[in-house]
């Protein structure tokens, strides 16, 4: 399954880069969202995938009975998701403000307007 996900993640990376290279700043933001998702999945997948064994210790025991999914990448990705959301909200507000001032979403035109 990891191999298949690797291909799917490659596709998401490619889409995100393509979007980020566009001139519209909205597409840039969408690219950013795709990129953060791809990166999260990459970390998650690289640690190896485990089916049906969440990293929880059953009630009344000191350790999980068998092998469980690696909790560390999960913890990393969990914060990464929230941080990506924080960054996205910042970017979105920035885009919004920029639009109000320069009235364009074309990055080339934005560059030429001195405000």
């Amino acid at each position, binding site marked *: 399954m990891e191999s298949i996900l690797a291909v799917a993640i490659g596709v998401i990376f490619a889409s995100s880069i393509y979007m980020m290279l566009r001139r519209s700043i909205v597409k840039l933001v969408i690219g950013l969202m795709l990129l953060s998702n791809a990166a999260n999945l990459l970390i998650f997948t690289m640690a190896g995938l485990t089916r049906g064994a969440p990293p*929880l210790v059953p009630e009344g025991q000191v350790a999980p009975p068998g092998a469980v999914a690696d909790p560390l990448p999960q913890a990393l990705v969990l914060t990464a998701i929230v941080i990506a959301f*924080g960054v996205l909200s910042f970017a979105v507000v920035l885009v919004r403000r920029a639009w109000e001032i320069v009235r364009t979403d074309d990055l080339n035109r934005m560059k030429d307007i001195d405000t």
Partner: protein
Amino acid sequence: MVRSGTLILSVAARLLLPLQLLFSVFLLLRGHDEPGGGFIAGLVAAGAFALYFFAYGQYALNAMLKVSPRDLVAVGLLIGLISTLPAWLAGEAFFTAQWWSLPVIGIKVSTPLFFDIGVYLAVVGSVLTAITALADTAQASDASN
């Protein structure tokens, strides 16, 4: 764009808000043992407030919250930092967890719990800051239309 919503939305928001907030607190408290925790609970609470905000608008939200979302972020950070102090007072390494048992109700209290509460507040505060900021600008441009 953001105006007071339809009847269904208003009623739903009013009914759901306490339930959602309760649920978020539940998620926060059980987070140490079951799926949940500060980040998730914070997002649930932020979602609840966002719904209320869509139904009733900025002023109603501010009136209900009584504090600005920005202050929530600050309080969250502060609690997170304060939760490191007991370990320091006990002469242990920075961030070493400290556990106490409340004698009467038998609930375990710990610095990680406080830390998680700090995370919770920081998440709620920053998400709400972004949403209200955007709504502000949206209203402003509505007004100028």
